[in-house]
């Protein structure tokens, strides 16, 4: 476990819990980061693009990796412009590409995301594309230079958990990059389940923002993610899904 690092674009992290920051009070951010044990925190570039005295950037402790996202982008071109703005604002080289041509469900546009991933990877960004879990699109993102793949578990903000479980499992099985489950994780138990499946990390925002006690929920997620990771690494035991195994083997007739 000691050497179990999450590696994204050559950077090592001990924590596998990526925190969102967009939906709760800035004063809670510091406590949330501490109790979550998080090392990466996302922030919307459009939110950081402010003159206000309470800039979200001031609330993020030293040593935490910022993961600016391109929310608000409706196509690849806009995402690229927002990512460049993030770099100008001093948010570093990481970028979570979020492109939505839909304001109701906020579902990501995979095609545009592939295009933006390629442009930004070529410009030296560590690109983490948020996507609808589709194997073909994920492969294209890998080829475009993505550092991770971030499939959604269910619609953003819905807290509905692993609605796309089967398809995320396919990505975990087939893609060599870290698969970070993003959006829709509403409870620590769902985060734990995704980690047991082999997800590399979990990103959550609304589940914390809507909790009664945000720091306590952050701690609960941390423990669930760690538990799921340990279970994955230890190798889950046999799970019998359809009753007992046959006592008379079907291959008992074979003679040599």
């Amino acid at each position, binding site marked *: 476990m000691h050497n179990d690092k999450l590696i994204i674009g050559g950077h090592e992290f001990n924590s596998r819990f990526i925190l969102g920051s967009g939906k709760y009070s800035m004063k809670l951010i510091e406590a949330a980061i501490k109790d979550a044990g998080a090392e990466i925190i996302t922030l919307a570039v459009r*939110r950081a*693009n402010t003159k206000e005295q309470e800039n979200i950037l001031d609330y993020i402790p030293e040593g935490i990796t910022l993961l600016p996202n391109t929310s*608000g982008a409706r196509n690849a071109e806009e995402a690229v412009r927002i990512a460049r703005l993030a770099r100008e604002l001093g948010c570093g080289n990481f970028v979570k590409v979020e492109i*939505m041509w*839909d304001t109701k469900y906020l579902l990501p546009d995979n095609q545009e995301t592939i295009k933006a991933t390629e442009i930004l990877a070529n410009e030296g960004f560590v690109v983490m594309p948020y996507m609808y879990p589709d194997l073909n699109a994920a492969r294209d993102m890998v080829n475009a230079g993505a550092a991770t793949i971030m499939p959604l578990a269910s619609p953003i903000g819905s807290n509905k958990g692993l609605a796309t479980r089967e398809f995320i499992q396919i990505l975990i099985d087939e893609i060599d990059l870290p698969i970070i489950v993003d959006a829709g994780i509403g409870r620590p138990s769902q985060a734990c389940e995704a980690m047991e499946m082999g997800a590399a990390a979990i990103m959550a925002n*609304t589940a914390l923002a809507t909790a009664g006690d945000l720091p306590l929920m952050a701690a609960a997620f941390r423990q669930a993610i760690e538990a799921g990771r340990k279970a994955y690494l230890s190798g889950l035991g046999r799970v019998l899904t359809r009753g007992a195994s046959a006592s008379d083997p079907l291959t008992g007739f074979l003679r040599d």
Partner: protein
Amino acid sequence: MENQFFVDSHHLSPEALEKKHRLETEPTSRKSHMEYLPGMEIIESDVCQRVLSHMNSYDYSAYTARDVRAALDHETCSVEDFKALLSPAAEPFLEEMAQKAHRETSKHFGNTVYLFTPLYIANYCENYCVYCGFNCYNHINRMKLNREQIEHEMQVIADSGMEEILILTGESRAQSDVAYIGEAVKLARKYFRMVGLEIYPVNTDEYKYLHECGADYVTVFQETYDADKYETLHLLGHKRVWPYRFDAQERALRGGMRGVAFSALLGLSDFRKDALASALHVYYLQRKYPHAEMSLSCPRLRPIINNDKINPLDVGEKQLCQVLCAYRIFLPFVGITVSSRESESFRNGIVKIAATKVSAGVSTGIGDHESKYSGKEDNAAKGDEQFEIDDARSFEAMYRDMSGEGLQPVLNDYVYV
């Protein structure tokens, strides 16, 4: 009891008074409100017909407590469910609606509340809308800010900390043409992150021009979706043309605007039907333009200069709250703005249930931000207000109060791309 809107000014000439009275009393003296005027673009769209067919057939008295119960139990709110939530049968369920609305608001917006302020740059108007303080027969101080005055107002507002501005004019193309508004938008981009417009409806190419100047949101209030009622309230001018106004948001989106805002002015007509139509206007346009950001307001009638008796009739705070909760449950993803027409206590309460945006440091007059913000009296001319506001909190007070309610005030969540 209907509102008594007609007020005569002794400043009007006998000829003007005669015309005014004729418009008020002889419907045949008024132009058709369904016919486009020269220069008004006509677009092909089925949105209006869809909205109206629902509104016209909506019999809210037919809904029962059972329908409301079912609507509250459904995971997603259908149009039928929404109709039940707007009906009188839903009134006893108000607290439960508020709880559900609150959950939806938290899911989509967390604990944030957006702050903005309006800036009126001119109050000239060519319309006779009987309830509006800017109407062309109302004797008020008229004013149009020049470039320097606009910039000064913007500086004063920006110094207060505000980052989002909504530029408004009276509806006069002659006094406040698109080029004038475009210049104001360009200035605003220097001082603010986000620039919205609430001006007379224009054609697609004009929205495109204003978008290129830096505006990205367009607000147009339909006032009432009942075109026959509308005709009796908007007696003169281009605003009288109901369908051109209805299609304004769609033209704005075609012109490249990121978002559009909608509203009926509650108190003018049957508020349940107007609330239904407003939300369905959003609903159908969102299906057609899924990338567009949408928001709803819910203003109620307010007193104006020279007529302090105008009131929102049967739309009390409970009814307003019901409408806002129903909006939130039906359209969980839309922004909901509650203006300074409402009281401080109402706004403090509703931001915890359904509203996501409030105005602060508001003046509906022209050129008076410095005196209102700093208390510094000057002798410069001022233009009179469109209506009386209720909640006069400054930006600072609003920021403090919203934080005190446990919310995170957000001044900007936007980048122009």
